[in-house]
């Protein structure tokens, strides 16, 4: 049978499913390759990367994420980068690099690698991946420091060719490596990015050999229509109206002024509009995001609220409209700093869930960690003499849900990075981690309590690294929903022999050997009134040491006999009545 003719005529629902799976399989294969060949802990262990296939018209077709934060980034940057570089200037075996946030990439650490996919001399599309590199230069190790301008944040890659027809362009690589601190890791991760694209092309070629370009392109078109059609069907099902929410970030990283975020979500049955008018103007500070990062938050929240089975591609995005005033903290313009863009985007998810809580009360969580919570450090490794950099992001409490507690110590929303194993970290970097634990009593009280935050301590061995924190939630907690309490605030501490002092949630400092740097992330908010919580669950929490007996009494109105591990029923009823009265 001539497949080309068949394709021109009608859709075969079976072939549709086969090609759809094969396309996403190709991107999955890229991701597996990336993970297995990467060098930095951030990629190989913490999975801060994603891969995708974009068609010749620049439309997102298939992607394999590890991180939801990468939901729309590749689809935004590839068409832009290709337009700028010129599709006609691309040859098989080329790899382009780009990381410029003011070209709608994300922050500088996220380097995209893009390769053209040619099949029988025809340019059919692009394979691309995004990796968060552990260092891209700039004012502080790990490149997450708080500065005023993009130029201070690190090396800006406009669209440059790193690999030309299979050969690495030595001058470009030299230039990149000269500007970064952790040279071996960045070089190794770039090699992994090149390999991943190679593997993706290998696999797509096999698919094209099997079905031919006209058939595959026909089904790509159908796949995009299919997603759009299903998103529209879901939108028709959602309640209609305009819903508002707001929240604020502790500060902008340079001044102590909070950053106010505001959103209005309009559902009209055919489309969804996210309007951020009323959000603060951008500042010369790191807590701004670009339109790509704002769009990411919107797609993520929508994806959570509708059938999760709908494939993510260009069609998914079509019914989504964004209004984000240019020059505001959610659509920042050149030359402002932007490294905290994901912190802002993460908090936008919270704002949007909060806005939609009245429309979809059973489908949204109470306030959650709602920050990425980056911890980075670097310096001269006393053992090797090399400049090393380390970066990780810490989990925290998730918000309570309509019928279950918020999980303890997890990544939230657009982020799902794994933790760095302590043994691997201590083996590879001159640091010791004396504590990694939950933070008891950090829950937001509620019928369903918020999850606990976590605590991690760092002690540096034989050198004085520069440590950077890029986080939040030290002033404004994760709020509860429907009567639930707020989670405990995060704390960033430096503990010396003589003192314990709070350090800012954004910024860099030198830490001496023997000093303990301690991060306690925030707890999640509660869902529903705490006095309605099943007393047996309170008993379990106290028994497990997650909630103290005192807090059980004060916040939940449950009195517990900690010798016999029983609930004092009469006393508890009295306490609960008291709590209820106080609330009214």
């Amino acid at each position, binding site marked *: 049978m001539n497949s080309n003719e068949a394709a021109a005529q009608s859709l075969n629902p079976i072939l549709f499913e086969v090609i759809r799976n094969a396309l996403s399989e190709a991107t999955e294969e890229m991701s597996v390759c990336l993970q297995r060949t990467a060098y930095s802990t951030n990629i190989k262990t913490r999975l801060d990367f994603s891969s995708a296939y974009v068609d010749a018209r620049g439309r997102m077709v298939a992607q394999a994420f*590890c991180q939801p934060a990468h939901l729309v980034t590749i689809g935004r940057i590839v068409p832009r980068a290709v337009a700028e570089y010129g599709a006609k200037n691309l040859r098989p075996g080329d790899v382009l690099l780009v990381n410029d946030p003011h070209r709608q990439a994300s922050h500088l650490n996220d380097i995209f690698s893009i390769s053209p996919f040619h099949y029988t001399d025809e340019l059919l599309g692009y394979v691309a991946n995004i990796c968060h590199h552990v260092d891209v230069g700039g004012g502080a190790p790990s490149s997450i420091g708080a500065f005023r301008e993009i130029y201070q944040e690190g090396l800006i890659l406009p669209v440059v060719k790193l690999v030309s027809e299979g050969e690495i362009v030595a001058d470009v690589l030299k230039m990149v490596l000269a500007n970064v601190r952790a040279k071996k890791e960045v070089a190794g991760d770039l090699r992994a990015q090149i390999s991943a694209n190679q593997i993706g092309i290998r696999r797509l070629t096999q698919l094209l050999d099997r079905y031919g370009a006209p058939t595959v392109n026909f089904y790509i078109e159908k796949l995009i229509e299919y997603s759009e059609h299903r998103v529209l069907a879901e939108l028709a099902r959602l309640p209609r109206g305009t819903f508002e929410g707001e929240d604020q970030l502790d500060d902008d990283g340079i001044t102590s002024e909070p950053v106010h975020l505001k959103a209005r979500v309009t559902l009209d049955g055919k489309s969804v509009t996210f309007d951020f008018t009323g959000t603060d103007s951008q500042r010369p500070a790191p807590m701004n995001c670009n339109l790509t990062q704002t769009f990411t938050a919107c797609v993520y929240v929508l994806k959570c609220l509708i059938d*999760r089975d709908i494939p993510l591609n260009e069609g998914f995005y079509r019914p989504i409209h964004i209004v984000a005033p240019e020059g505001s903290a959610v659509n920042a313009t050149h030359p402002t700093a932007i490294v905290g863009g994901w912190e802002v985007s993460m908090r936008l998810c919270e704002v949007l869930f909060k806005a939609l809580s009245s429309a979809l009360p059973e489908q949204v969580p109470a306030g959650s960690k709602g920050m990425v919570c980056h911890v980075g450090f670097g310096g001269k490794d006393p053992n090797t003499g090399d400049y090393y950099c380390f970066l990780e992001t810490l989990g925290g409490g998730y918000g309570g849900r309509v019928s279950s507690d918020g999980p303890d110590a997890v990544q939230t929303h657009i982020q799902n990075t794994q933790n760095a194993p302590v043994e691997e970290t201590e083996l590879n970097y001159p640091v010791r981690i004396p504590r990694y634990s939950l933070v008891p009593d950090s829950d937001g009280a509620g019928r369903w309590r918020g999850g606990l935050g976590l605590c991690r301590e760092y002690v540096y061995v034989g050198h004085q690294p520069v440590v950077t924190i890029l986080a939040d939630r030290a002033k404004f907690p994760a709020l509860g929903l429907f009567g639930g309490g707020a989670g405990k605030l995060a704390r960033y501490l430096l503990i010396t022999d003589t003192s314990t002092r709070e350090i800012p949630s954004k910024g860099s400092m030198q830490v001496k050997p023997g000093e303990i740097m301690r991060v306690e992330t925030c707890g999640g908010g509660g869902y529903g009134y705490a006095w309605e919580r099943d007393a047996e669950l309170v008993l379990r929490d106290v028994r497990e040491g997650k909630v103290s007996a005192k807090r059980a009494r004060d916040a939940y109105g449950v009195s517990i006999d900690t010798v016999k591990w029983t609930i004092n029923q009469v006393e508890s009823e009295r306490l609960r009545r008291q709590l209820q009265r106080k609330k009214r």
Partner: protein
Amino acid sequence: MSRRFRLGVDVGGTFTDAVLISEETGEIHIAKVSTTPKDPSIGFLAAVTQILAKSGAQAPNVSYLVHGTTVATNALIEGKTPKTAFITTEGFRDLLEIGRQVRPSLYDIHFQKLRPLVPRDLCFEISERLDASGNVLRTLDEHRVVEIAKKFEQEDIRSVAICFLHSYLNPMHEERTEQLLRKHAPHTVPSVSSHICPEIREYFRASTTVVNACIKPVVANYLQGIESQLKRQGIKAELLTMQSNGGVLTFEQAAERPVFMIESGPAAGVIAANFIAGNLGFSDVVSFDMGGTTAKAGLILGGRPKVTKDYEVGAEARPGAGQSRGSGYPIRTPVIDLVEIGAGGGSIAWVDAGGVLRVGSQSAGADPGPICYRRGGTEPTITDANLALGRINPRYFLGGEMDLDLQGATEGIRKKCAIPLGLDTIAAANGIVEIANAAMVNALRLTTVRRGYDPRALVMVAFGGAGPLHANRLCAEMQIPRLIVPLSPGTASALGLLTTDVRHEFSRTRIMRADQADADAINRIFVAMQEEGSELLRREGIPVSRMSFLREIEMRYKGQSYELPVTCGTGPLSAEALAQVCSQFHGEYERAYGRGYPTEPVELVNYRVTAVGAIPHPPVRKISSRDCGVDQAQKGARQVFFSESGGFLSTGVYDRYKLGPGHHIVGPSVVEEMDSSTLIHPGFEANVDSFGNLLIGARAVST
């Protein structure tokens, strides 16, 4: 000399299969009884009783018994484990609670984080600390260990996992803790991380040890129960269980390290495939096992099944980077590497909200089962589609024991799939089979191409009730040139139990740069593990002449975290031999990831020794030749739909039991037997070999 027999007993989800082989003649007997989930030993013993009665074999003549079981996994999944505690380094009590700090599902607001197997109030911290080189930074607080031991006695803690930071480099504190616990808490069984899984990354080592601790009392109890009952029946055979890595383990060892037998059942299938192909001289094999709920693909290279250590117990089967991470309890013991997908005979077909036909991963299971089983199933399944297309004989399912409802199946497909899709019923049924096949092709790709192995150099062995029905088409898609379908495909897994060797795997981590490696240190590591292995084998009664050892080094480029294994010889390693191992590594790397980097520094990470105690295989029984021609084995013909032909073709139907060596069948045809049907597509042909296998290939190739 009296007749001697080997007995294999495979306790599956639905059935308990027993296989008995005569050591002299290779004659095989099979028994099938229902599994008894509440106490699987009842079904086990029933199967043994039945097979002895059927075969006429005497209990004392059973010389060797191998057991495949999911009792360990089930105890975990059903939460039927006794009170277990966890002891770790101060500051890390929440190691299990925090886990990897990830959500198992990215967009599910209502996700649940895996509940630790040990509740937080039974997790204890002890002051002690090693650094990343294994040196003691803080000595062990022995006083505190004794205090905890007393608490164990008071609270009736039956089992405990011990895992200290960096103990994989230096087990001193763990071993001392174990010693003190044995003395002061004699009723608590310890599991020690540096013994169970001496590898870097604390959460994974701890999780492996905790899984072991949780199932240890259950498994020990179960195996002891079986052992004493078998003794009562007069069976004095050596009792062995199948491990997840495909080797066998004595009951004694299995009770000590039960985490090694967590995937005992599926491993047996791959071993069977290896045995069947090996008899015919093939050593590079894809095993394809398709049953009622899932299909599993595994890879065997050079006669050795691929083994992985990246495994989660009870995880959702979803291949893909980062997708299903965190949905199960990770273990780092070797497990035969299978890609398992939700496409079995009972997998349900449906039309999704976007008007597209989907198959799986929901399954109708055994109850209610497919519509055609007449047990109240209402959703069309892969089996219903196969029936509607004429690929299954409604009058000869399970040898005629079950009369299938063809009309019901057809009607179900019409209503649930064909009408919503605007297709006719046959096109929809064909769609179901094609989509299931596409999913299986993906699984096969993950097993082969993704790892850089060319399917054109492989042979497939297909088994499981539904495997032979789909295999020919899959081979054609994958360009796998040869397909073997053994006799009795439905019980092939139980046969696997009897065709494996005793196998113990050891590993140590010691990271060093290849160009600065200390060959003596490596030799010492290998020799120590080999001695441990031969000691174990000796205790299990394996003579030295049947012991063999395989050494591997897991390597990577310095800076990476994922290793590739490279085999090295069993003699002392010299500097030249190390260089050879390195160049092998560059080659392996290029094969897997497209490009090697010979100028980059290479690191040696893990050293592994596999100690094998060879068990002589039973002779394989040849089938007798038939006087008659192949036409006498033909039962008749019926109309079967073939998608490549776009319609029904008149298809010969053959009785497997009447086929003899040398018989030759041309597709399209169907070969029917008790527990399966084999489909031979147009353009293909099958030859019957002297063991009764069907060897299927393209017509031009195999003549």
